[in-house]
């Protein structure tokens, strides 16, 4: 019986998510026996053409070539899973979506005419249908193994979509926001990390992006009442998941409040 074929694709990213696959040391040997890991479309075109049973896609879309390539990946993939903040929300490089890309390009490169880039860094799902999104910056190894195992077994992966707060309470942490007044994105961020930062008295900074049906306005209103200023609140949402819709919208709302545009006193 032929083994299912797994492919890993990289777009604009730091490689951290696909390295998480290599970090699954204990499961790696087992995994290598269960699936045929075929990485690159072009490298395998001659010997092992698609389709692939499972494609893991890391990274965001930032160039015209990326736009074409992701279409090809979609065509030859039965199941397409995006992994990490870049693939699911555009990643940290989506911070440039807020800036003038032309000015930026001229600043950064000696010969900007050679640089072909899109105005925005965007999530994979903006370009092709995605079967499953696995969050995190980077993804967590156990969740990645869970997804691959579930797909191999033909079942639905068990990935929670509730808030980090749930994990934080289960872990028995003292709430950093209530006890110390530390700004924390835990109430609006999807679980998965085990509430790592609050366990060490740091506020959550949103690596996993927005949870299902978050209420970020309630959170920032509360933080504002606690004395956190608007520029800090805006920055809080503008990190690795800056372009995730719920975070993007809330950052804009606070920005408008800061500018006095909504009629409220800053």
């Amino acid at each position, binding site marked *: 019986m032929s083994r299912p074929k797994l492919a890993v694709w990289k777009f604009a*990213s730091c490689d951290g*998510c696909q390295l998480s696959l290599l970090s699954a040391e204990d499961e790696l040997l087992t995994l290598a026996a269960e699936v045929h890991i075929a990485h690159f479309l072009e490298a395998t075109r001659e010997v092992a053409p698609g389709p692939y049973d499972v494609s893991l896609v890391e990274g965001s879309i930032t160039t015209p070539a990326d736009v074409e390539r992701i279409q090809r990946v979609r065509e030859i993939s039965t199941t397409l899973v995006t992994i990490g903040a870049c693939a699911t929300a555009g990643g940290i490089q989506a911070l440039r979506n807020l800036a003038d890309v032309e000015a930026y390009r001229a600043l950064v490169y000696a010969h900007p005419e050679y*640089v072909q880039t899109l105005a925005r860094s965007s999530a994979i799902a903006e370009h092709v249908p995605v079967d499953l999104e696995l969050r995190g910056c980077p993804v967590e190894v156990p969740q990645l193994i869970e997804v691959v195992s579930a797909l191999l077994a033909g079942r639905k992966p068990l990935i929670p979509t509730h808030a980090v707060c749930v994990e934080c309470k289960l872990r028995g942490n003292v709430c950093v926001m209530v006890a110390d007044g530390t700004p924390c994105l835990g109430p609006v961020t999807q679980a998965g990390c085990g509430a790592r930062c609050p366990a060490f008295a740091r506020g959550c900074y949103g690596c996993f992006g927005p949870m299902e049906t978050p209420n970020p306005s309630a959170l920032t209103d509360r933080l504002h009442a606690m004395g956190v200023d608007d520029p800090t609140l805006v920055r809080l949402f503008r990190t690795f998941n800056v372009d995730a819709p719920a975070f993007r919208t809330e950052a804009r709302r606070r920005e408008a409040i800061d500018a006095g545009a909504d009629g409220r006193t800053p």
Partner: protein
Amino acid sequence: MHDIHTIDPVTRIEGHAKITLHLGDDGEVADARFHVTEFRGFEEFCKGRPVAEMPGLTARTCGICPVSHLIAASKAGDAIYAVTPPPAAIRQRRLLNLGQILQSHSLSFFHLSAPDLLLGMDHDPATRNVFGLMQAEPEIARRGIRLRQFGQEVIAAVAGQRIHGSLVVPGGVARQFTTEMRDRIVADLDEMMGAATATLELLVSVEDRFERELHSFGEFDSIYVGHCLPDGTWEHIDGKLRIMAADGSMLVDQLDPHDYREVFGEAGKTDSYLKSPYYRPYVDGDDPRPGMYRVGPLARINLAERFGTPVADEGLAAFRERYGRIARSSFLYHHARVLEVIACVERIAALMEDPVLFEEKVRSQAGINALRGVGASEAPRGTLIHDYEVDGNGLITAMNLIIATGQNDLAVNRTILDIAREFVDGPQLTDGMLNRIEAGVRAYDPCLSCSTHAVGQMPMAVSLIAPDGETLAEVRRD
């Protein structure tokens, strides 16, 4: 041709290494350029953000060595706060960096290079990868996986997680190191020492097969740069910079990284996107190449007198017996990496016995006391410098990151040029040459996404450029 020139301003690295070979009027290869898009996107979008965020943000430049950025960013933050972290925090950071070097070198050696070195450069590419190695040499592959895992566990113990850890901060670290963490690390030490020394024996036993690579992969004179203690002991995070000439004489010793601009220039080339740092006193005019220097494992063991730990020093002595006091070939980066793996295990073991590591005070608090701060350390691939300027509120106004892979750029170009001169004949590009270039570039373990794809060949695009700028030939291997 636009494929060759397409780069993205924010992704610090693309999926493809881009190499252009420039022919001279005589039809011979006159120049080679290795194109990398650098971290410049980060240098722009970090502006306006608080210095305290820099460890977390800059770690995202790279999933392979995020710890190096955590450390350099935190040290730059220390300088801006004008604080000295508590002794326990300094030791925790030392431990963290050792774990990082250990895991990254293990990845480079076992997952990326061992398939070439152990299965042979001509082995079937379909299985010349870490999974092929697992089948052909399961014990060796397992050793590599365990060494990397151990390094990652050391990282997780200090930073909270393996990739993009969050617990290193300006002023120190975020939590106390516990005896439970120590016990987990200590339990594995004997196995790791055994795995590391067995790896060195294995490498030494096969190195003779690569006589040709030894002499054709970057065998040339260059300056060497890296951290080092004043007495010449190998150092990775706390010392200052030593700059050594090709013949082993000292050019500059114990340079404070804060003053790096005094001796290093950054060439903004007209035909590349990458700035090439160079040693300023050797450069007169626009061509930075006379100021070429190498950083990373080979540079570090060339400029240090000793590791300062017994087993690594024994290996270093044997290495010097064989290759001389200054090893010139970049092929020997592999050997240097394995020696550093041993040194890291020995130093981690020593730190586990140090009572200061476990002290409760791990963070110094302060406000913005300086408007510029430079943080430097040895990343696995070489010296990393973060240079920040801030306003009175601690918001970044200017940022410069000097990355190990960028500093090796001139040496990588030279290595490719040497290989190309040997393998390019007329306006043709052959697959044999691509294989050689791949192995030559990989010796530097450049921090490129393409060099870290553990499975398959290094994706790259090579183009041959005529003196008038016309592209004569182009080969692309994805």
